[in-house]
């Protein structure tokens, strides 16, 4: 691996980590709300949240660009706050966050929906308020789904391409992540250098799966069947 490969890897990991950490609390909150609520509002929210899954990523990227460009709805707010976003690593994180959010919310929502509401009722009757019940009962019982969702979101963030290239461009050393660099190197005929990065991606994916499975196995023991 060259020094350039290494800095691309670091940038990609940093962006994916920041994006995942930022959306994790939001995804847990959204998954919880969707698992408890019902009716037309929930369906509408779920549909909107699922859009990034079905739209072409470039379409989402263009919509995001309209929002955050100077003079756009969010762009003006960012300008006033003095935050430079477009064509920086923050823009990459924004694109990956939006694209990976639905992948986080779905398993989280499913996991919370599996938690028996009567169990939460018993916890309330033992003197704990809604937040304590959420933290001490719902969250630990749904951890598997939360872990799976986090893993999915992180992987999606690592490989995001379409939305990223529209909001952040493909600037080596600034916004060029692994996925963008593989594309770029293939375009300029450096297939060998591109394949090196593919190797890096495969290694990361392998590690991510390994870590997830190890975590699952370690936490699975206590609540499982007779040992």
């Amino acid at each position: 691996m060259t020094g350039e490969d290494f800095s691309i890897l670091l940038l990609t990991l940093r962006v994916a980590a920041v994006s995942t950490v930022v959306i994790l609390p939001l995804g847990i909150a959204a998954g919880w709300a969707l698992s408890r609520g019902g009716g037309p509002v929930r369906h509408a929210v779920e549909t909107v949240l699922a859009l990034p899954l079905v739209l072409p990523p470039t379409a989402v990227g263009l919509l995001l660009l309209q929002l955050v460009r100077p003079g756009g709805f969010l762009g003006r707010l960012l300008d006033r706050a003095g935050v430079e976003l477009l064509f920086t690593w923050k823009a990459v994180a924004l694109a990956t966050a939006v694209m990976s959010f639905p992948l986080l919310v779905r398993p989280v929502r499913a996991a919370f929906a599996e938690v028996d509401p009567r169990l939460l009722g018993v916890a309330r009757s033992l003197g704990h308020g809604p937040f304590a019940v959420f933290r001490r009962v719902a969250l630990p019982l749904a951890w598997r789904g939360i872990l799976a969702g986090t893993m999915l979101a992180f992987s999606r963030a690592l490989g995001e391409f379409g939305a990223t290239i529209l909001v952040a461009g493909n600037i080596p050393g600034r916004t060029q992540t692994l996925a963008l660099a593989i594309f770029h190197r293939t375009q300029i005929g450096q297939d060998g250098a591109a394949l090196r990065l593919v190797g890096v991606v495969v290694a990361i994916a392998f590690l991510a799966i390994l870590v997830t499975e190890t975590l699952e196995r370690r936490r699975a023991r206590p609540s499982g069947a007779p040992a």
Partner: protein
Amino acid sequence: MMGPSGAGKTSLLEALAGLRRASGRIEVSGERLLDSAAGIDLPAEKRRIGYVPQDSLLFPHLTAEENVRFGLAKRGPAAARLFDEAVGILEIRDLLARYPATLSGGERQRVALARALATRPRLLLLDEPLAALDVALRERILPYLLRVRDEMRIPFLYVTHNAGEALLLARAVLLLRDGRVLGSGPPSDVLAAHRVEAVDPGASFDNIFDGLLEKKSDEDGVGRLVTPRGADLLVPLDPSFPLGRAVFSVAPEDVLLSVRPLDGVSARNVFEGVVAGIDRFPSDAIVHVTAAGLPWRAHLTAGSVRELALAAGRRVWIAVKTQAFRRLR
């Protein structure tokens, strides 16, 4: 609280516990928990009402100990004392390190009871806590419930289909059907007035006898239960149980009926009586007999009732083996 499925028993419990939206007024020992007119609706965590459902609902990710401690403060002498008392009364010290998945049904119910008791609720709601257990286990857990009632002095509202449990545990019975109160008052009165079998086809009816247990001097292993209003009954005597106040049950299946005087049978409890009434079901029947001053229920097939030509007012003899009596306390 008794009544057929769908009568609203569980809904009532959940409304009391604050786990279900309700309107109206709920007051427990002078404190208003719900008063729709006054805009009062205490959340479940402020009501101090313990809830033990039929399926225990232990937290599967916590050990038995963590389950019992769930409603207690993290540390402090008061928490330690409440924990020790609940664990002691329900005798679950040996189970504390285990997870719910590794506990038997009866063990789970004891842990669930301890968990509710540890918070010192002012009222305990028990939703068919023994229904999922077999008869032997049920009889082992009943004494724990009696200790909760008599030693901890926590009042409870107990849902059951078992009239024997109601007679044993309750000072008052509330009979529900279709969301309405059909009757309430002392258990024997309500059960006699309403024929709960007719109201609740799922109800099961053990014969329950309450009295003073004495040693029968000439025979080992057999005791005499002196009932206040009726004849003495010969019951098994287990040396590990104390004499004195005792409650025994007999399943209606173990009460034999004859339309002729019984002579030369091995059963030791043989009495002459009169059929007080019959509850007929498609394939079987519960025959109510008054004999030796005591009310008995005998479970017969529809065919037997027909062949014996049983009807209210008919003279009959009943026979019950000593070993058919099981001691409840």
